[in-house]
């Protein structure tokens, strides 16, 4: 936990520093002396740097005595030897989610969502059966029909295609 906190604090401080450098290009005060566009960004990114440093220092200092309030969380993290595989599972789902976006861009909504659900159900959940197939087909088509035809809200149709269900 502490190592994660140290990493987090570094990331927060770095993000804050980056935001601060960007904010310095904006006017802190406008010509009439009133807070300008840079006023809030400068203060906030500065605050982020400070908070990152504070988080780092406190988590380093806490190392000898493993916290009072954290104890409740420790067992759950420790009793699962597969903590890594759990993160891996979540990560796999996220990657499927991520690659659905370019597919969405190029193939359009229905094929992309069918592929996303198929990846999740066949790949991650290991449910290669007819029920999954029905879900993978019915959900994208149903959602598409609902939005595009019932509510007249367009969904992406893809670069290479106008879409099989275009109105």
């Amino acid at each position, binding site marked *: 936990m502490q190592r994660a906190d140290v990493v987090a604090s570094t990331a927060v401080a770095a993000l804050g520093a980056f935001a601060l450098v960007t904010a310095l290009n904006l006017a802190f005060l406008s010509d009439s002396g009133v807070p300008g566009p840079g006023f809030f960004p400068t203060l906030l990114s500065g605050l982020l740097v400070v908070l990152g440093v504070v988080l780092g220092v406190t988590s380093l200092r806490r190392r000898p005595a493993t916290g009072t309030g954290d104890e409740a969380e420790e067992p759950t993290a420790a009793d699962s030897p597969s903590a890594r595989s759990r993160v891996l*599972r979540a990560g796999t789902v996220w990657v499927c989610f991520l690659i659905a976006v370019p597919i969405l861009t190029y193939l359009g909504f229905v094929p992309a969502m069918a592929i996303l659900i198929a990846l999740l159900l066949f790949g991650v959940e290991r449910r290669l059966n007819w029920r999954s197939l029905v879900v993978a087909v019915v959900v994208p088509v149903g959602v598409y029909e609902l939005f595009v035809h019932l509510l007249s809200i367009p969904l992406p149709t893809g670069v290479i295609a106008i879409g099989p269900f275009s109105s």
Partner: protein
Amino acid sequence: MSALNHLLDGLGTAVSPTNLLWMLIGCVLGTVVGILPGLGSPAATLAVLLPLTLRLQPTTGLIMMAGIYHGAKFAGSTTAILLNIPTETSSVVLCYDGHELAKKGRAGPAMGMSAISGFIASTVGVIALTFTAPAIANLAVKFGPPEFASLMTFGLLLVISMAGKSPVKGFISMALGLLVATVGVDLVSGSQRYTFGNINLYDGVQFITLTLGLFAVAEVLVNVEQKRGKPLFAVPKKLRELLPSKNDLRRCAGAIGLGSVVGFIIGALPGGGSTIGSFVSYTLVKNTSRNSDEFGKGAIEGVAGPEAANNSEAGGAMIPLLSLGIPGNASTSVMLAALLLYGVQPGPLLFANHPEIAWPVIASLYLGTLVLLVLNLPLIPMWVQILRIPYWILYPLILVLAIVGAYSARGSLFDVWMMVGFSLLGYVFRKLEIPAAPMLMAFVLGPQFEVALRQSLTLSNNSPLIFVERPISATVLAITVAVVAFSTVSRRRRRRRGAPALPTTPSVPAVNTSAVDEPVK
């Protein structure tokens, strides 16, 4: 008392069977459409369903819109409670206690309380609208930038007081939210902030993009870590456990009362709306409650207070619309557009020129919550069934709807990418035990606070005294200080009586005073 007579006449018109039927249909449609992410805000639902209503008689059409409005509001609360997806800004607060209740198997009571407090609050709202409209309209006009800045301070107090176990992490989350909110072309100066020359960022980050990534999808990622197949969390089978108990109602009476009044007044301020109302109401209820330690862990008052504010706001928002012709928020803007399409010009002269429309509309707003209560209390057991859907079906559906929601808000694939990015951030937040809610709340309140502060200082030529010189602003600040002082004192007293204070708990007084001072400095 002629106002009362008019209201009763209006009720008489609204109660005709045709009108009631359309209101019922509107309520169902509003709930069903409002549940879809990206359409969760009543304004979007109204806009989407507007063509349907325009085919009807003006009065009937407006009555149906009132039904849609309430249905959509209830739907927003439903997704927040059941799935931790706030589809509109005013239901963000519900993620704290509403979803915690659902995790404990008390989703039904939470939703029931949302409908009941909503009904009571709209009763209060409509009665207040009938009798106090001129006075409140006067107050609404007097509420300018300094007053808003003071009110925002109060709202941001909530964010600070919800910082949780590790105040530093809570503050990091809040600062990030405020920073993300500054992205885009600055309204006041026209400068680009954190846009990196990308035109997709000129209008800033959309609320729905952030909330779907940070909450909905991140929640899915955490849930899929564990297991395959089984439903999300336990749902009691007995009907009695699906509705609020008498004890729940007793506990919430004060919260509902407080929330109704606060929501009504803030709803009447042009630019106020239900978001600030629900935040302020939550802060007030939490800090004046005897059980303030339970808040954030599933206190039912944490649902009742904001939901009351959220619903009495509808009555309040009608005041500037009807008496000044000024829409108070996005939903009333759509109502205004509809009135104009019917050839009715809302404004100071509406009641004189078109009483046959004005009063039935007010009456129907009220009836809308009644219909909602009658319709949705029995349906709550059905809604809760969502939680019984096997998770392997539910989570792909949530992911698909998240993509639809992020895309359809602006028709932007860039927003979909951003939502995917925020979902990773949300997951990392959970792993590092950084609370995500302060980021979302700060994101919602931040821009309004910043603009109000800069507007105020522009008006006063940079003199901070404007916040205490204007009587309403000074009053709001005084209430803020009083609430902070009250909660600090009562917490100290309780601590002295009970267990000794933990050294790790946030030092509330120091934090709060600094926040109060901020706009005055």
